[in-house]
């Protein structure tokens, strides 16, 4: 999986460079998020702007990151979700679980 991690405004911004998250690479995403959290990252924004497709295991990987960071009183947010991908969050009602922002600036300027 092609991931890019930057520190911006005190946030750890993880940009997913792949167009597709499915059961083939979601395990890697999940592991990467867990290691970030174990390493001390408390404010994570996952940028999904490149992602055209996500399956249920991809949603599961994001959910896992969210749970672990919330357990440490941190923050987990998603940004730049494409239309069809967003409909997956809506159908599974995970849009009520995740903090979802239109873009990075909106995520930065929100208190959560």
């Amino acid at each position, binding site marked *: 999986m092609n991931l890019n991690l930057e520190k911006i405004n005190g946030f750890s911004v993880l940009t997913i460079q792949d167009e*597709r998250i*499915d*059961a*083939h690479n979601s395990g890697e995403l999940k592991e990467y998020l867990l290691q970030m959290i174990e390493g001390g990252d408390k404010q994570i924004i996952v940028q999904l702007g490149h992602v055209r*497709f996500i*399956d*249920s*295991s991809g*949603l*599961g*990987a994001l*959910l*896992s990151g969210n749970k672990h960071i919330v357990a440490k009183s941190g923050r987990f947010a998603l940004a730049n979700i494409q239309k*069809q991908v967003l*409909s*997956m969050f809506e*159908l*599974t*009602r*995970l849009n009520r*679980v995740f903090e979802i922002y239109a873009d990075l600036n909106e995520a930065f300027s929100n208190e959560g």
Partner: protein
Amino acid sequence: MCSSFIQVDVVIQTQTKYLDLIGSIGERIAKELDNFTGDRAALAYQLNLVLTEATVNAIKHGCDNAPQNCVRVTIHLQENELNIKVFDHGQGFDLETVPLPDFEHPGESGMGLFLIRSYMDSVTYTRQSDYNVLEIIKHLK
């Protein structure tokens, strides 16, 4: 004689790296649905998703995990109907007893069949003597 407009049968080794191929073929077939009046981009996504979810299940549960095992997927497009079948050689399961996801306490798994049922019109799982088949139907209007 052709009973369908398009029939695509795909057999892959039981490896998740081929999910993208199978999903992409489904997405591509959505372009051929001349008579479909709904949201074609949404349908393309849904076919990709449904094929991906169903194929993962067949890979995960459907066979002893030797990589030389294979999963067969068929996609048949008729005038008013798209029919998808995913075959597995595992123990099988009872589709009717699979619970809905717990939306209040969402788990990291258990959403695949819910998604398939949400987007498609009919889903059945049948055990035969030497294989099982998940059959998914989408009516096209």
